[in-house]
């Protein structure tokens, strides 16, 4: 069960913190992009490939490591296999080749849609996964209340999904995963369907939760600005068949103020990532 080609993975990982240190010295938090030697990664892909039954090759030889406490975003052209990568990480799909190594404490998967059960109230929806994992009722109640308040839905416990705005539904969806306190979150363009204002607000919120809980995260998005704002590292994927092309470290520390979006450094980094995307 040894990874096929860890060696390929190493340089990218090592390069990340060095770059980061060089640019944003002093503002970096203690953890983050450090290779964390000896600590098991939250998620590790080694030489993963995926070919669908119809012959489509979605991923080739993909290496990727997400360390505990790290927020990694993936941007790439449409159809480059970003979602496939996430589905493999979560176990919804199987890789055709390579190794996938996942920390044991479970995965929080946040879908593109909120996927709330329309007949359940916010409270019952947030408690769903805890129910499926057979947490006992008292513990479940405690965690549900905590998660609801963490995502800012206090007072909306009895509302049904159709009574909420798109942003609030997404908050409920987040809370549902938070309840299980997973070691890694997988986000599949969770805010893609929301308007810009709501999306930025939820980004701020997500970072606040990240700072509080320090989960690992793998975040897929189309928005370069969103990726840079949230992440410790941004990975750019190449077009089909997909593979990780560059790994751009983000030097800004946490917590990040919303105003960061308007700083020249932020714009420069976004430009850099966009250039990588355009060179596709």
């Amino acid at each position, binding site marked *: 069960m040894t990874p096929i080609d860890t060696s390929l993975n190493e340089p990218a990982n090592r390069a990340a913190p060095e770059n980061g240190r060089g640019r944003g010295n002093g503002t970096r938090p203690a953890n983050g992009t450090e290779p964390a030697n000896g600590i098991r990664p939250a998620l590790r892909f080694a030489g993963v490939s995926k070919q669908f039954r119809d012959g489509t090759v979605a991923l080739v030889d993909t290496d990727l490591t997400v360390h505990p406490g790290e927020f990694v975003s993936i941007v790439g052209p449409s159809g480059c296999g970003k979602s496939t990568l996430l589905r493999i990480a*979560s*176990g*919804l799909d199987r890789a055709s080749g390579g190794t996938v190594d996942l920390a044991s404490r479970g*995965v929080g*998967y946040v*879908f*593109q*849609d909120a*996927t709330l*059960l*329309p*007949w359940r109230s916010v409270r019952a929806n947030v408690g*769903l*996964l805890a*129910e*499926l*994992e057979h947490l006992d009722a008292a513990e479940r109640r405690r965690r549900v209340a905590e998660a609801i*308040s*963490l995502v*800012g*839905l*206090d*007072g*909306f416990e009895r*509302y*049904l*999904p*159709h*009574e*909420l*705005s*798109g*942003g*609030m539904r997404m908050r409920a969806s987040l809370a549902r995963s938070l309840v299980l306190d997973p070691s890694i979150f997988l986000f599949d363009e969770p805010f893609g*369907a*929301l*308007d810009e*204002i*709501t999306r930025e*607000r939820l980004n*701020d*919120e997500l970072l*606040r939760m990240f700072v509080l809980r320090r989960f690992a995260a793998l975040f897929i998005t189309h928005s370069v600005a969103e990726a840079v704002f949230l992440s410790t590292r941004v990975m750019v994927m190449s077009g089909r068949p997909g593979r990780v092309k560059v790994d751009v470290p983000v030097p800004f520390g946490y917590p990040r103020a919303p105003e960061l979006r308007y700083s020249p450094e932020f714009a420069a980094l976004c430009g850099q990532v966009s250039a990588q995307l355009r060179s596709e």
Partner: protein
Amino acid sequence: MSTSTVGPEAAPATGGGAGDGAPGDSGAAPHTPASSVAGTPAASDAGAGGASGAASRTRLRRGLPRGNLVSLLLLPAAVFAVFVGLWYWVSEVLLNDQQRFMLPPPHEVVRIGFLDWSNVTSMLSALKLTCEVTFAGLAIAMALGVTVAIAMSQARWIERSLYPWAVVIQTVPVLALTPVLSFFFGFALTSRIIVCVIIAFFPIVSNTLFGLQSVDQGMHELFSLHRTGRWTRLWKLQLPAALPAMFTGFRNAAGLSVIGAIVGEFYFKQGEPGLGTNLSVFTSRLEGERLWATTLTASLLGVAVFVFFGWLSRRVVGRWYQPDRG
């Protein structure tokens, strides 16, 4: 701490897609609670948000019938008037005195069929029996239909092997089955109930199956991520999601089971008479007034069970499922 950075979200609810945006339009019902609370997601004033959400909902509820009163009552009443008019025209103008027994005028039907006390008591006891057959048949069809649909939803091969036969049961002329049914179950109540089950079975199976299979793929994946067993998945995901479709099936089956009961009574006349038995008797005796009174009663029973299941459906799933939303 947790609410310090929470602010309002301008996002409108995306459900329903009623994007016409006419202010005060009652069609925007599902949006209004969301937009009224969207300004106050902070915990401190969530109570106010909830209150205004509730207020806007009651306002909508009061606003709704105003436009619908005309369409709900007046329009059907107008059609009814036309219907009665046509009836009189056929009865008094088209038919001569010898033919009039085929369609006696409405006031004669009411006088003899509904106001003659001895006729009314016999009608009521027939109605009671028909109701019993209807509800027994419907209950059995519901239990059987839902069970079969669940079995089909669990394995492709079960669906493949059973579904064609469910269609056959729906399409086979019940008339052709009467000899066989009478051989096995006699000419009385049991056979009547079985006819009823045969007629009501298919809409329940097909609607329940459709509902069970219509669950969103994302929801299924959510359950798969947590390695949910099939019974938990059925109980917590598929059955609740199927409820609206199931109720559509129940409602259609309820109307059909009245027909089933009448048809059953028409053929299997042993024992106490039901409405169907009486229809057959009055037809052969050329008692047009009682025949039509019985026919009207049977249709009213059908309408009653149909309306009842519509009401039940709104009670059970109406809170979260609005088919005509927007």
